[in-house]
């Protein structure tokens, strides 16, 4: 009986921990933002080198910068990650389209 109670408590604790982890309650820091910003800039640069940069990636980074300056690093990281994904997808797009021609 005691063993069963301990097991139930352990499972509940595990579920609670998993639930907390899933709830993105992590508050981002300046350091998190700096890393996200560097990653985003690198991804956008790669897309630019391929002549495939998207229109809004730079604007999104400006919004991220604004949020960081206001101290909202969680929002800033989110925006920087969005810009990074744009850079990554744009680069993949350039690869996909490298042999583009008329579709028959």
């Amino acid at each position, binding site marked *: 009986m005691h063993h069963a109670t301990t097991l139930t408590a352990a499972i509940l604790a595990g579920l609670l921990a998993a639930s907390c982890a899933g709830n993105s309650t992590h508050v981002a820091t300046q350091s998190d933002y700096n890393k996200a910003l560097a990653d985003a800039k690198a991804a956008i640069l790669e897309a630019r080198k391929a002549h*495939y*940069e998207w*229109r809004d990636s730079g604007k999104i980074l400006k919004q991220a910068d604004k949020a960081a300056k206001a101290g909202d690093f969680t929002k800033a990281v989110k925006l920087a990650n969005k810009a990074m994904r744009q850079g990554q997808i744009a680069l993949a797009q350039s690869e996909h*389209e490298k042999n583009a*021609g008329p579709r028959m």
Partner: protein
Amino acid sequence: MKKIAVIASAFCMLLTPLVSSAANPAQDLKDFRKHYTEMFPEIPLHDFVNGVYSVDKDSREQWEAFEEFPPYETYVEKGEELFNKPFKNGKTYASCFPKAEQGIKQNYPYFDKNRGEVVTLELAINECREANGEKPLKYKKGAIAHLSAYIAYKSRGKKGNVKIDSSPESMQWYARGKKHFYAKRGQLNMSCADCHYHNPGKKIRADILSPALGHTSHFPVFRNKWSQSSKSGDGMGTLQRRYGGCNSQVRAKPFKAQSKEYRALEYFHTYMSNGLTMNGPGIRK
């Protein structure tokens, strides 16, 4: 024997992508034209120079009414004044474009073998200015569009005569422009071809898409949209101004006017309308 067949087969496999991607401008031109004439069998080839008005009757009626008092006339006159106004050194644009009065727009852009690059009319205008000690003009609108409009006007009736030089450098420029035309880009994942090759005549939101065949014959253009966003009402703009707008509309970052990317695109795009009659400047929505 079996070995030879395997080697031959492997060789063919290696060669196939090279052959299929090798640029053949003359064949491209033939295929391009065939595509539109089959898509719009009722439209005579020469009418494609009228852009969207060749494929949409209702818009055509409005456009014909506009053409009775065309808004670009003022800017053609401004271009003529600029063309004949002496630089500080006393020379005029005629020193760089001695045959402009007879029509030269049909020969642009061209591949300059010595420089190894494509030269557009607007680039040549600015190079003329710099050679005569003047500052270059901004490339998309204003005085450069007026000068270009005047030169285009003088070239009316000439047949497009862009020559694709067969040198490897020239073919690289051509292939780059061709790729830009057909490759999807931007967040909306759309190419120039998606709108103007595969879907001309169809609607995109409230607008009807124009065929790419004949596009370049009527530039620069006076666009009502550009006029409305201009304090002075000057709606004139160059072809590369429009390229930037198109790229931006599919949420791709536009290239700079007269960048290699847009000059390459203009090289391919204009060659695709070779043989059609120059009728610039034009009026567009």
